[in-house]
């Protein structure tokens, strides 16, 4: 097979379009792959309107001698109360961008946290928290009448707070960040 000089192909308009298409497909493929498998989620970013926060309920009444849910009207109430404390906690827990000290940062989140969690976060350097802003509406999954998992979108991924109804009211028991 005779090889022609490279310029022969490169100068043909059809080839140029083809190569542009091939490159476009490669780049699109890479971006698509990253979207599919990467941790960055394309939705839930800033700019989302004030859509109502959806909430889900994990079925808790199932089977004969398991939990009987005849008298539990409080799933909705649990969900909205947990959403409030979960979001307040996450906002207090974000990396301070206003020069607050470590002590001020910790004091700001203590009132939303279970004592165990407050203790766990006592010596944390808040500048190591990559999340600096809330970027969307929080959502809640009700686990039981006295607990819900609240997810708050941040600029470093979703922050997940397990909220529990204690004698002192709703509190955050655990905090996680990322998918």
């Amino acid at each position, binding site marked *: *097979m*005779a090889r*022609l*000089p*490279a*310029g*022969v*192909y*490169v*100068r*043909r308009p059809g080839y140029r379009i*083809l*190569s542009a298409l*091939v*490159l476009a497909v*490669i*780049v699109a493929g*890479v*971006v698509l*792959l*990253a979207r599919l*498998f*990467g*941790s960055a989620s394309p939705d839930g970013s800033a700019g989302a309107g004030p859509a109502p926060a959806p909430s889900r309920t*994990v079925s808790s009444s*199932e*089977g*004969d*001698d*398991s*939990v*009987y849910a*005849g008298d539990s009207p409080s799933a909705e109430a649990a969900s909205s109360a947990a959403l409030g404390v979960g979001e307040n906690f996450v906002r207090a*827990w974000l*990396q301070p961008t206003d020069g607050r000290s470590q002590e001020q940062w910790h004091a700001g989140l203590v009132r939303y946290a*279970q004592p*165990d969690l407050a203790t*766990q976060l006592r010596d*944390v*350097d*808040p*500048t*190591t*928290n990559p999340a600096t802003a809330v970027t969307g509406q929080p959502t809640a999954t009700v*686990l*039981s009448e*006295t*607990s819900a998992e609240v997810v708050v979108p941040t600029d470093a991924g979703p922050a*997940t707070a*397990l909220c*529990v*109804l*204690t*004698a002192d009211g709703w*509190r955050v*028991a*655990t*905090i*996680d960040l*990322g998918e």
Partner: protein
Amino acid sequence: MSLDLRPDAADAPPDGEARPGRLRKLVVVGIALLAVSALLCLGFTPMVFNSVVQSMRDSAENAQEGCGSLGFSVDDDVKIDGLAADQLQNAATIIGVGQQMKVPPRGWVIALATALQESLLHNYTVATDHDSVGLFQQRPSSGWGNASAGATDTRTPAQRLADPKYASAKFYEKLLRMPNWTSRRLAEVAQAVQISAFPERYARWEPFATLLVNRITKGAANGVVATEGDPIRCPAPGQITGAGWTVPALGQVGSGFRTPERPGHAGVDLIVPRYTVIHAASAGIVVTSKCNASTGNCDVDGSPAVKGCGWYVEIAHTTGLTTRYCHMVTRPLVTVGQSVAAGQPLGRVGSSGNSSGPHLHFETRVNGDAVNPVSFMAARGAPLGTRQ
């Protein structure tokens, strides 16, 4: 790469002599495009790779059953899809150091879960986040890596922490000083050693770290071991497997999970005498502790005519797992929001709610869906039933 494409020679235009100016421009543009796409590829590779390990993290289900007996032999030839040679080597080093220091298998799981979160088991010798280095991303500014008094080690703290054996030993030393570390929640224990802004992150790795220990040591996470050399045994109530589980009570499994006779039975009934202590099957946060009965009274024995599971407790463990304990004789010993250790007493067996006699109705759930507790517990080295 696209410059290698060659269209059919017959279609080549007759004016084969290239105009060098345009050609050079095209080549430059082509190289620039290539560079950009190569950069994109490189930039995204870690993300795609992370997703492989992350999906393993999320789907890790311990297929190992029974309570292993070979737990102290490290398998050097083990291969795990998605993990590169350096990651496997570092995992084996962490386990090996734990064995040398006589740390029980629970500690190896905690150390691996921590290192997976901090470094994905890559030994970072140069700090990329603050001054954190090595498998555990320990920070010299926080006091990690200081030489012990009288030591002849002349390395800098950062150099020491970039040594996987040194870093692992330092992690274990701090772990062993914590009270009840074998039975407490992994996130709490790892947090006390590491001090992260989002402690729960470590716990996400618990199933995958368990699987790694079991694969590398042929099942050490699936049983309890008192001292090295002892055979690894299935746990009695209150004894914790390396995976972090124990049995809530020892007793025959009476009514099973969704049997043909009781398709709606979302758990198993363990036949145990009234007042037997019920133990938390694993560490977690109490999310429910209340009376659930159509009569509203759980302080008297129920009956098949009563609806509900009586005095009961529900615990949220890591990675979407919950367990439920029904029909207690009196108000549970734990309250909502409380962090409980594996094996901690939750209450005592009774017959409150929908019950015709004393037993423990025990449920295991994955993301809210009930699964068969018999296979669930067997996969965690804590099989239900009677023993001893």
